[in-house]
């Protein structure tokens, strides 16, 4: 949507928060309850089933840790992109956003590698409660990473032309949220015994 075609509704800001950022907050709020519901279900099962710890010990902690590192770093790039956008430096913001989505790509590759190993060892989606939650949680999170990457590349394309710079911050917010989700998934799926 090129800037001229925007309805006036989109340009108003009665709350003092720009419309784009406002909708981002609402999206994040609705994501919190989606992930929250799944995590709550997992946690109460996990506490109720101590024997799941045995399955959990098969997960590749180092891979999870490396992925955490990747996401933290990409979050850094995202927030630096936001800083650049505030300085009206579109091209730099675009560069940093592309770097961020590169981080997302690495994350997904590591995940793929990791899952290959798990499946080779015979742990699939239907191999008992822990593995069902493990693949479901990580899979849902992975989908969010993928979606974030795609949107980020689109935003970057605009930003490179110094257009829609306000979107840089918004996609950044979303990315940080995905990061935070992983910050909790990592101990829940890999470390807790």
């Amino acid at each position, binding site marked *: *949507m090129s*800037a*001229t*075609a*925007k*309805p*006036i*509704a*989109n*340009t*108003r*800001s*009665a*709350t003092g*928060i720009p*419309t784009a950022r*406002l*909708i981002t907050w*609402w*999206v994040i*709020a*609705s*994501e*919190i*309850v*989606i*992930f*929250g*519901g*799944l995590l*709550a*279900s997992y946690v109460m*099962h996990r506490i109720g*089933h101590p024997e799941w710890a045995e399955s959990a010990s098969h997960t590749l902690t180092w891979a999870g840790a490396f992925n955490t590192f990747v996401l933290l770093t990409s979050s850094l790039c995202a927030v630096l992109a936001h800083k650049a956008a505030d300085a009206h430096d579109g091209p730099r913001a675009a560069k940093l956003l592309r770097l961020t989505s590169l981080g997302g790509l690495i994350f997904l590759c590591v995940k793929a590698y990791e899952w290959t190993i798990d499946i080779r060892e015979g742990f699939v*989606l*239907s191999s*008992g*409660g822990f593995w*069902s939650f493990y693949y*479901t949680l990580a899979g*849902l999170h992975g989908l969010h990473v993928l979606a974030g990457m795609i949107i980020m590349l689109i935003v970057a394309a605009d930003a490179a032309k110094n257009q829609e710079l306000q979107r840089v911050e918004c996609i950044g917010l979303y990315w940080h949220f995905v990061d935070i989700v992983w910050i909790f998934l990592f101990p829940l799926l890999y470390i807790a015994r």
Partner: protein
Amino acid sequence: MSTDVQHAEPGIFRKYFFSTDHKMIAMQYLFTGMAMALIGGFFAYVFRMQLGFPNQYVPGYGIVTPGKYNALVTMHGSIMIFWVAMPVLIAAFGNFLIPLMVGCDDMAFPRINRFSYQIFLLSAVVLLSSFLVTGGPFGGAWTAYPPLSASAAFNLTPIGATLWLLAVVLEFVAFLLGGINFTVTTMNSRAPGMKMYDIPLVVWMIVLASIIFMASVGPLVAGAVMLLFDQTMSTGFYDPTRGGDPLLWQHLFWFFGHPEVYVVLLPAMGIVADVIAVFARKKIFGYKTVLYTTWAVGFLSFVVWAHHQFVAGIDPRMANIFSVTTLLISVPITEMVFLYIATLYGGSIHLDTPLLWALAFIAEFMIGGVTGIFLGSSGTDIYLHDTYFVIAHFHYTFVPIAIIAVYAGLTFWYPKMFGRMLNETLGKIHFWGTVIPFNVIFIPLFITGTAGDQRRVYSYAQFAEQSRPALQHLRTTSTIALLVMLSFQFVFLFNFVWSLRKGKSAGANPWRSNTLEWTVPSPPPHGNFAELPTVYRGPYEYGLPGRADDFFPQNVPD
């Protein structure tokens, strides 16, 4: 920025199918919802015929077998709640009214808005397509309790169950996008001068409903993913033989399912508030109090869900807590209804069709409300749970919400939507022809319920106590009343279509109303306002002393 690029009249195809104009999207939601309502109504006709005249050939359908009966009641429930009440009450009225009432030219995110409708349409198609697959549509009740819903070996609808689940999830996504859009538009895009308490109640209520939906649906989306994997990938989330727990789904479902009741109730309440204010020529009694009670209801609706599960095998101690919170929620709702009744005091009440509908809403909804007390108090629920008493109770809330309030809204805003007035006589005929049979349908069901008729049963032949002739007479009565009610709906359809062409033209403000949507021509042009309005006062300034005419539009300077 120049808006003329945006507001040039687009071509026919873009206009009717890929329009981003909120009014067009509202119409798409409205007509999709009405079409689904016809389908859901037809299902009701079929299974009521089976209950009224057991094992007879049903004209237009045929013989109702047990499996078909289950599918019919399941689809009736799902369609009426997810594909009729929500699209019409929230999406249709929300899309049409919010930009007009807050005084801006469109939704804040028109393309997200269009996208949400397209997903919704897809969900409807997916649902209906389940009638074509082997095994037929899902028949495990709209609550879809696993393991029945999780395993084809139990529900015998291998594909239907999955399609139902997919359709529901898509529908949720559509309304998440739509609801977030409503919220952002109302928060950010209000006309200059429109303060928090200058927003018409109907907008308030639609937005609060969207927020409640957004906050409650998440866990069920997660739960639906788990159920989908149980169905298709043989996981064991809800399978007790493999460390899962069937109760988890029930909790996730009702954690959304109860707030959902208020998600559809609030917009209805808002519509009724606006209609009453206009036709009683009266300021809403305690506008802010209405809002406080709404917030209270919104919060409390998150802590009552397990009253749907009192006898479902939850820990009995929990039932005590949820029983208390359930009766607690009756407090703000009662207050809201009292305020509406008090609004009538000192008005000058014009009994036009919209007001008739609005008053009928309150009168009938009160019955639905008080019968809820029987079910909310855990002691009596032991007996009444899953009987026809429950059915009668929630139809006394849902019919006023999804039928009566919707008619109030349609008859009230029809002139604005289509630029012509509905025929008043036909409107009154339709009103009485709907409301009287409605009571004749469900009062007998209260009695059969107290007599122990259980739900979702295609025939009582197996049950000596339920197959007493006296009870069968009641069932037949309610079926006949349903036929009458359904047949009167065609009066409305005729009125609707006929008035599109022949109705007398409405003009900008036929009801002499205050809110902003009446300041623009009917139907509003693309882009709504010639020049965007400024707001000087609240929406309900009727009968202000010392003014020539008894109303005072929001955009008129003092």
